[in-house]
């Protein structure tokens, strides 16, 4: 039996319907699987949504969960991929006191070196945005922490796959039939 726990990025193409998030997350909950991150958005196809879910489980379990997700009436297709098979990013925002930007020269260096972007600055605070891999976001967090972070938020993973996803083809086929 495969018992090795791996990290998988799940991509689910669905109809855009109320309650579908609940239906999908229930499949993980039933098997006592923790969702590390989840994000839902529009996809490249009009009126089709895309969920990106990150989990750490065995591949054997992953396959069973994919089967149970695909079985849902409003799910068009579901895929799972390893990190190597995807291009993925996370995004984060830091809210930091504006004084620090001027008083702590090092902060300016950190911002430059990390390729983070200053979104806004006012008298009280500035907001820093950074997109990248988890370890890059974590590194930036560790570097800024000593100076004091007023607020921090990080998004779930979003990912595109290296392989093609033939969703449009599937939908076209339905229309033709």
């Amino acid at each position: 039996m495969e018992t090795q726990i791996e990290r998988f990025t799940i991509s689910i193409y669905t109809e855009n319907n109320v309650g579908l998030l609940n239906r999908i997350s229930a499949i993980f909950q039933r098997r006592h699987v923790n969702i590390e991150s989840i994000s839902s958005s529009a996809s490249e196809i009009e009126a089709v949504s895309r969920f990106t879910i990150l989990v750490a489980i065995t591949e054997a379990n992953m396959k069973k969960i994919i089967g149970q997700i695909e079985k849902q009436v409003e799910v068009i297709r579901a895929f799972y991929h390893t990190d190597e098979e995807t291009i993925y990013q996370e995004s984060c925002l830091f809210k930091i006191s504006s004084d620090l930007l001027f008083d702590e020269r090092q902060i300016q260096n950190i911002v430059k070196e990390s390729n983070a972007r200053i979104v806004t600055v006012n008298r009280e605070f500035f907001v820093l945005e950074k997109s990248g891999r988890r370890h890059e976001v974590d590194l930036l967090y560790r570097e800024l922490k000593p100076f004091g972070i007023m607020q921090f938020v990080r998004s779930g993973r979003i990912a595109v796959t290296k392989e093609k996803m033939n969703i449009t083809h599937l939908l076209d086929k339905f229309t033709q039939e």
Partner: protein
Amino acid sequence: MNFNKETMQTETLISKDPIASECIRISGSEAIVRSLIAEGVDVLYGYPGGAIMPVYDALYHFKDQLHHVLTRHEQGATHAAQGYARISGKVGVAIATSGPGATNLVTGIADAQIDSTPLVCITGQVTSSLLGSDAFQETDIIGISTPVTKWNHQITKASEIPEVIAKAFYIARSGRPGPVLIDITKDAQFETLDFTYQKCTGIRSYSPEPQIDPLAINKAAALINKAKKPLVVWGQGVILSGAETAFKAVIEKAGLPSAWTILGASAIETSHPLNVGMVGMHGNYAPNILTNECDVLIAIGMRFDDRVTGHLESYARQAKVIHFEIDPAEINKNVTADVAVLGDAKKTLEALLPMLVQNTHESWRGRFAALYQIEYDEIIQKDLFPTKEGLTMGEVIHKINTFSKGDAAIVSDVGQHQMIACRYAKFRQTKSNITSGGLGTMGFALPAAIGAKMAAPEREVVAVIGDGGYQMTIQELGTIFQTKAAVKIVLLNNNFLGMVRQWQQLFFDKRYAATELINPDFGMIANAYHIPAQKVTVRADLDAAVMTMMAHDGPYFLEVVVAPEANVFPMIPSGASVSDIRLS
């Protein structure tokens, strides 16, 4: 037209043709009723209440076309709809109000989900402006029912009604069937719409039937043709796809000994020479033992439930496994398939048939016969033809077989009596074994029998129930009294929760915690509902009592007091291998 109650009742009910070719302006509630009629629904089960009252008012106007059965509890409505669906193959319909009405449906819905029974449940919901406000009798039934439905949907606008109902019926009955719930806010029931009805024929994100892969059929045929010791285990998929004839042709041509899961029972007649009995925890000795000796295991429309496989890691490890299955999620879920044949069982079996080589497997089948003889001597004979004092459940089932000539549909509840009924009932017709298999819902049988009898009034329907489960839905005697549904009720009373007591005896050193029942006078309760009743306590009276019951025209109640501490054997203890099946 603006809504007001008077117009709804008069002006809008001009045409009683449910599928009006022209668009008509009617209320949402009337659209619900017309949609049901358009789907061919002739009977539905339910219970009224505040949030579903407009639908009941519409039902009142259509009572000549759509028969509503008032159950005594909403759980009874779902089980009755299940019984209706299981015996007829049609979609069962249950309706209830919001809040407690809706939550009371949940057990039946969960039962239908795990046993793949097509149901459409309709619940009323508070007015849309009140959603989420903790309004009176508001409950999030969409949230609650999500994990136990194939699909669910909330309607807040009357204009959605025909399309959503059409979709609901399509989803419930297509592919692997299952329950669907539609929650309709009260304002959507009152609102008017321009009504036309079109049946649903497809949903782009949903492919109910996988395409058949001819290569998989080839591989399956090659394995079966090469097999020296093949074993078929079939499940309800054979019945759900109407594959009985194709199935029989396949096993007869290739000479395949075939065993059934509890829900597969009755797909072919019990007496068929290739029918080697039931697999699983209380199944027959031969098919369980030989599961671990066969060289090719051919699973057809079954899902390798843990009650079937016992300890998975020692289940049929020596065998090549072929899995015929409509639901791709079942492939490799519990048992890894060497060959997966996806598709509707009828179609895949029909494609398989011409590729099979004629065979009889005489000597291999001899193994089944020899092991059957051991089980017969050790268990079956004592169950069916006991000589000791104390009635057995088995002899009661045997008498039912005798007097029904195997033509009755047996609706069983859950527990010892269920295992005995499924082991010993003799079937000659398909869709005759109606029981709660996957969920194991006590209280299923009485209401399910009502639904079954209504769907197949020409058939004898015998509900076999234990004293525990009977009291979980005993109020449905009221439904029988009111509808005169001619259900024969056989109560096998051991004054115990027998199956749990058996486990306590075998695995908990006879500590009978909360399994002994002090029971009422069941005959008096039946009589209170004007149902004729009889009680048998000695063997000498059994024959006449069963005969009287079967001959009676109308509902009948027969209580048989059976030995209090009898056990069901054979038994695969929980977690043990199928080949470690115990005879005592």
